């Protein structure tokens, strides 16, 4: 415990020059404050987030950051997820201005564990069948359903699912590069569109209703066009050539983590090490 406290103090000292002005350190200032952009982070990642705070600040957003240890101590409850939601409820009800954006920083791991830095609420199954018999899903949406008795989110939420300070630094660097680099080029109207055989009708709808009418350059990688080696190679090439949007209209698999079709693998986690793209797509992984 002493080691942890020492590390926390050292971490705070190191990050203080970078993010002290954004970091909320007392319960009172957590109860009553205001921001456009609120970061809720595990303490391990605070030091890595200074550049992101400054970027958002420079773009006109009022930024505040709070560590989960302060959230848990200020809003004690039977679980950390409930504490976080209580905190966000307070923020929603009393902060002025009320944040537009909530950014959670830290990975979650079902059932706890070493990588459960910032837990995720687990939703019970809905009435329809899930692929693979999965009956529970982690979803951040519950954290921001703060008004009314419904599932409609009331704040905009995202998460950086990082496991280490180095990984957080990498992700922040990518965001800074994306937002601040003048990266003109054909990649900004290039779409990577893939499809499993059974989802081709949906891929074609996006193609015909949105991408083609806009005049975008579409790299189609459909399962029907090849086999696993050729499809995987084409995905690596498409990433590395640059695309602004990736739309995987296929299935997902967890062993290994992959985009898959009925017969072939389209792209899997071992292919990631072959990626060298310096412009990054948003992947709208629709499943």
């Amino acid at each position: 415990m002493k080691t942890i406290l020492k590390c926390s103090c050292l971490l705070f000292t190191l990050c203080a020059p970078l993010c002290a002005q954004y970091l909320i350190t007392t319960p009172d200032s957590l109860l009553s404050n205001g921001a456009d952009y609120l970061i809720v982070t595990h303490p391990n990642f605070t030091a890595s987030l200074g550049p992101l705070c400054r970027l958002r600040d420079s773009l006109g957003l009022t930024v505040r950051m709070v560590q989960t240890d302060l959230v848990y101590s200020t809003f004690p409850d039977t679980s950390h997820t409930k504490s976080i939601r209580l905190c966000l409820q307070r923020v929603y009800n009393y902060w002025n201005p009320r944040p537009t954006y909530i950014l959670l920083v830290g990975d979650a791991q079902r059932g706890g564990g070493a990588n459960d830095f910032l837990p995720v609420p687990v939703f019970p199954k809905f009435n329809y069948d899930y692929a693979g018999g999965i009956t529970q899903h982690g979803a951040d949406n519950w954290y921001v359903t703060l008004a009314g008795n419904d599932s409609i989110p009331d704040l905009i939420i995202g998460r950086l699912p990082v496991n280490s300070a180095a990984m957080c630094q990498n992700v922040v660097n990518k965001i800074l590069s994306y937002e601040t680099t003048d990266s003109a080029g054909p990649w900004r109207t290039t779409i990577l569109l893939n499809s499993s055989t059974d989802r081709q009708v949906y891929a074609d709808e996006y193609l015909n209703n949105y991408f083609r009418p806009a005049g975008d350059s579409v790299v189609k990688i459909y399962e029907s066009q090849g086999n696993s080696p050729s499809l995987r190679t084409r995905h690596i090439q498409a990433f590395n050539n640059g695309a602004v949007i990736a739309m995987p209209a296929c299935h997902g698999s967890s062993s290994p983590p992959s985009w898959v079709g009925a017969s072939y693998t389209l792209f899997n986690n071992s292919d990631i090490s072959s990626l060298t793209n310096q412009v990054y797509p948003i992947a709208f992984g629709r499943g």
Partner: protein
Amino acid sequence: MECLDEQLVEYASGGAIAVTGPNPCGTPTGNHYLYREMMQKIYVEHELVLGRIVYDAKCRIINQYFPVDSLYGPAVLINLLGDPALRIKYGPPVMVGETKATGAPDISLAVYPNPCRKITTICIGHRTPVRRSGASLQDFQTESMELQIFNIQGRLIRYFSLCPMPYALCWEGTDQGGSPVPSGVYFVRATADGISETKTILLIR
């Protein structure tokens, strides 16, 4: 082991800047409706803030299809792995020295869903397609505009000053003080450079 989506976001030498997912899969229709809304946000409403795209799409699907699990379930469960304030770099950047289009604005106003239960999205844009032929969105933007919402008695209950078009915002059925307004008929009016467009909103609580 981390899922593919996480690995794409975390990979330092490439990969993706953000991912929507993981999601439960298994419900192609529900997922399709959700992602169709996201594409609608980008390609029709020209929204480029990532979190807003995901948020508005989720709100519309949940609002419209509750309580049909297979349709609104994916919207509840979808996660955004990335910075919600990120602005997608879709489309060619504005070139220095380009001139803006001149003349009176040609306003289009859309409200979706309508009727609405809790939240509705009001989209203000141009009737004329604003992209292609190398043109960027900014080429056609007016300097400022105003959006007003009136109740059936004609009383102004909410107003927004917006800049620039195209623009989309969520109205949560509240007045200027943040208090919920009752069920009924409301009128939303967008005005830019003296040109107005009005639509009716039916709010059902």
